[in-house]
């Protein structure tokens, strides 16, 4: 049987190593007005992950959108114990870069393939500084 693992290379946003189950959003994520940090749940009504909990997951998303409260809301998930354990970010911005920093979880961007296409929700993902190892489920 072929090796089910896929290796992606990128640039660390927050250096570190973590592994866990992926939660993939194909749409950008809003912080303020888009998540409930007390529960770690996406609350944007029109969002594909409306009602889904990201706590303890490795959150894979194309970009951050909306309010500048993005980082503050994700910092609150850390302070509330509802944070994702890692972030794989398609395209970095000030919002998502600062958000990853203050969530204090390993995060990576600028990957050599689109992480939102390569990774599916439920895949097992290892972020190790500048690489991501994906085990398909």
């Amino acid at each position: 049987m072929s090796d089910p693992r896929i290796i992606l290379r990128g640039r660390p946003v927050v250096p570190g190593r973590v592994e866990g189950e992926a939660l993939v959003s194909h749409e950008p994520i809003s912080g303020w007005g888009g998540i409930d940090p007390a529960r770690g749940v996406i609350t944007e009504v029109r969002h594909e992950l409306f009602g889904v909990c990201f706590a303890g997951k490795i959150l894979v998303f194309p970009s951050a959108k909306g309010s500048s409260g993005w980082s503050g809301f994700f910092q609150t998930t850390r302070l509330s114990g509802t944070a994702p354990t890692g972030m794989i970010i398609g395209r970095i911005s000030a919002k998502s870069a600062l958000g990853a920093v203050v969530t204090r979880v390993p995060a990576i961007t600028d990957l050599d393939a689109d992480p939102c296409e390569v990774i599916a929700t439920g895949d097992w993902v290892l972020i190790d500084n500048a690489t991501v190892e994906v085990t398909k489920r």
Partner: protein
Amino acid sequence: MFLTDEEKRMRDGAEGDAVAAAMDLLIRYGYALDAERLCDIRNVAGTMTQPSPVKARLVAEGGWDKAFAVINLDSDLDLTVPPMRVPTCQLQHGFGPDSVDIVPYPRANVELQDDAEAFYGRHGVNILATCTPYQVGNLPLRGEHCAWMESSAVIYANSVLGARTNCEGIASTGAASLTGKIPCWGNHREENRLGTHLISVSGMTVESFQDWGLLGYFAGGVAGEDHPVITGEISRPDLTELKHFGAAAATSGGVELYHIPGITPEAPSVAAAFGGSAKAVPAAVVYGPAERRQMYETLNEIGSSADVDFVLLGCPHASVDQIRQAAALLDGKRLSASTELWIMAPRALKVMADRSGYTEVIERAGGRVLADSCPAMSRAAPAGTRVFATDSAKQAHYLPAILGIEAWFGTLEECVAAAVTGRWNGGLSE
């Protein structure tokens, strides 16, 4: 990231622990962005006073110094907050003491915020308390590097004023306020400020306040985090229309900078908006009557009940003239017994509306002019609200998610009519 000798001294504690923690955050943030260096700024718009459950807990544990360290510097150290190093203002926050008995908002939050204002005022934070600092005296110059948060203010500063700021957050503005530094990345760099998408308005003219909001909502969807350039059949906009346009574009996408050739300062022509060469101008995305209707229907898809309990105006915070227009429509009218109407404004402009007699006209009809906050920031609407109406694309987008209520998006006239009759009777004009 390159650090100057001054920045290294700050990092190493020569200016105290709080400045060192601020520099540590800026270094982590600069790394995350892959920024080459920091730039000097002396205009910060952030948030320190806004009440939240986490902040209340931190203040109870260790006072405002603790809350600032954790939330505004992302630091776990015991720090003493020094005076702001550069001019720093507080953006919109919670409701104040004058809202008690009008807005169902926890008294504990009002008291916490009062305490915060006193603390941060002593440390040199200008309490502007508005999402539109550019309406009340904080007008950065063209080319000025700033560290602002509030997406609707960031897009206004970059696009309409030609100032340079990324969409900063609570911790980066906190760190900037103590250092006068921010990563020189993204919108701070000349080469990153060109247009990326061309949107051509065709088949109708965008000229009303509502139409500028619909066009902004479309532009955000087209451009995402990039830089739309608007051309075609548009009227000359004013401050309020670009305030609405930008807030909408920053809501549906992550737009922080746009150009309107001939109107905004960095784009004298369409070619200039894309770097000067006609070859660099991309094919236009058309915004016509069908796209306009699609935006209108998207913003109205959450509404089903026509019984409107609440009308919200002033998102982003109203200008004096917007308050005057609402007063003119409400003059001699009386709100439906089942409906409330609030207009959000900067406190400084509410003073002018009071002085001009507009507030009295609005209050005589049963409406309110409120300062400092908004229902989305404070998660507060009149008790029992199930359906609200607004003239703001941004508020129509966010409030259903934040409060779990239905939304109608329409014109000022339709919103005032809904407040008077208690019924939504809006529709998109041709």
